[in-house]
């Protein structure tokens, strides 16, 4: 399943000018570029949170440019996962409930609430938060909150996870462990990842680096120096 993104020019200020991008299943890609180059806008457009003003976008084999709002919401739910710079967990719910949330929106397709719960628990275990099921986000450190966010992004089993500066708010150590988690999930489950980052060190650990400058792709190369 390919995700093809062509010629996007999102908002009135024409932030992006003619992007031609393809993401293969399982790819671990970094999206880098200076501030204001349009990285976040591109990510939002890929994530169906914003519409492109022109061109076409094929996600998982379907042309999503003709989707209405409900269909886009459904696609976001089923195919994509999101990790934001600020974790954006729901403060009214526990860690476990936060992770379960995307599954609960449409429980039927996932085998019911019990199945979702056990999947969420397994993911929390995998990110090292076995003891934090019933803690509210306020009770967790920044690094732990981001790990909950990673688990949430994966609970529905998306094909592509979009991460906007996932480590931007964390110290080096926490950031590294998050990155390692993402790498691990990418290897274990074949989930494709697109990570927007400022940090060239992190970019250097991805399989592919796409550089965005002034709304256009400046370079798009495979990274042969991929690390762990």
């Amino acid at each position, binding site marked *: 399943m390919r995700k093809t993104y062509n010629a996007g020019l999102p908002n009135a200020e024409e932030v992006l000018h003619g992007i031609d991008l393809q993401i293969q299943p399982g790819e671990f890609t970094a999206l880098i570029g200076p501030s204001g180059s349009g990285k976040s806008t591109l990510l939002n457009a890929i994530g169906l949170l914003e519409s492109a003003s022109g061109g076409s976008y094929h996600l998982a084999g379907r042309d999503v440019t003709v989707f209405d709002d409900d269909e886009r*919401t459904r696609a976001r739910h089923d195919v994509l996962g999101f990790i934001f710079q600020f974790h954006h967990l729901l403060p*009214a719910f526990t860690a476990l409930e936060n992770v379960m949330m995307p599954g609960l929106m449409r429980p039927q397709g996932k085998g019911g609430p019990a199945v979702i719960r056990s999947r969420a628990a397994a993911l929390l275990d995998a990110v090292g938060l076995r003891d934090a099921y019933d803690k509210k986000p306020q009770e967790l450190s920044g690094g732990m909150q981001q790990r909950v966010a990673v688990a949430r992004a994966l609970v529905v089993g998306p094909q592509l996870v979009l991460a906007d500066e996932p480590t931007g708010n964390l110290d080096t150590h926490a950031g590294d462990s998050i990155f390692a988690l993402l790498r691990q999930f990418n290897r274990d489950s074949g989930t494709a990842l697109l990570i927007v980052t400022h940090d060239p060190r992190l970019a250097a650990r991805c399989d592919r680096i796409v550089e965005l400058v002034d709304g256009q792709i400046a370079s798009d190369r495979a990274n042969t120096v991929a690390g762990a």
Partner: protein
Amino acid sequence: MTALGFELTVALRFLREGRMQTALIIGGAAVGVAVIFFITAVLTGVQGDLIRRVTGAQPHVVVKPPEETVAPLLAGTPDAPRVAAVQARPQRLTTIDGWPALARATEMTDGVLAVAPVASGSALGIKGDASRSVVVLGTELDRYLRVVRLDDKVKAGVLQLEPGDALIGIELAKDLGAVLGDRIRVQSAQGSSEVFRIRALLDLGSRELNRRYVYTDLRAAQSLLGIPGRITNLDVSVRDIMRADEVAGQLRAQSGQLIESWIQTNNQVFAAINNQNIMTLLIRVFITIVVALGIASVLVVSVVQKRKEIGILRAVGATRRQMLVVFLLQGVMVGASGALLGSGLGLMLVSVFSRVLRNAEGQALFTMQFDFGLVGAVMAGAALLGLLAAVLPARTAARLDPAQAIRG
């Protein structure tokens, strides 16, 4: 949590999260409901009391034969007017002939509860040396009791009107120096007289009636008044006392008789009651509007506060409709729980005040009618109100753009 479904879970949790706001608005709804409960109870009680007093021992509607009109024998013309002195004949007892048919027809009329035949006229009540001017009312007791509740007017004795029995007002008994079981003689203007045994003393609610009324069985009155087989009026009770006029109108149309309702006779009281009802209705409407606005405003604030959360939920796959339902549910739950609380509060208010406020006889002015059906209806109505109040905030929430909402 999972058992409740996504929207309900989120709605409940959002409400719990904004504890103070939720408490405030449930409190507001509760106060509104309590006030509505309270003034409704007071109004019903006070009006019921008033109507009881006013109608007292009177029936709701009376069917009488048309009054005799007197017309000049010779009519003038515009060119040659005649002047004539017209003298009305002294009042004779006018009667209804063939009353069973009329009674049946009246009973079948929409809104009529019960009908009783009455033969009444002036007479003299005599005991020993004492005599007083009275009104004899002959009737069939079992039918009459369904028209006028004599049973809650008994001060002493039992209600029965076998031949030879009479029920008299307490003032008349006093005036004649008679007690329960005594015999009195009743002499009619037509000359006949008969002796009755007093079976009960009644307090009919007014001194006038207590001084004059003597109830006997129908046949005795008919023979006393010289109108065998005929009656002077049909007394009627209606289902909805406030609509007595409509029933009277219908009876007027279908019979040729003279029909009077208590409303005509007491139209000032009736007008006052109507005005009270209108004002109370207005008060209730405005309270409802205020509560609805309160719920809406709190929810609007909540939507603004929760922009980020709404954005996140939408980003990870909640549809617009799901967000709409989340906020609509909040409105419903706030309305219903406010109503439940308010009903309890209202009941408490009523029971406290019903002890404090009493009418002239020292009876409670209004009693507590605990009606689960009413509470259920109020809760349903409040839930609906909450739903409507939540519509605009919910639509705002649903329309939030996820990308912008997250950016904050």
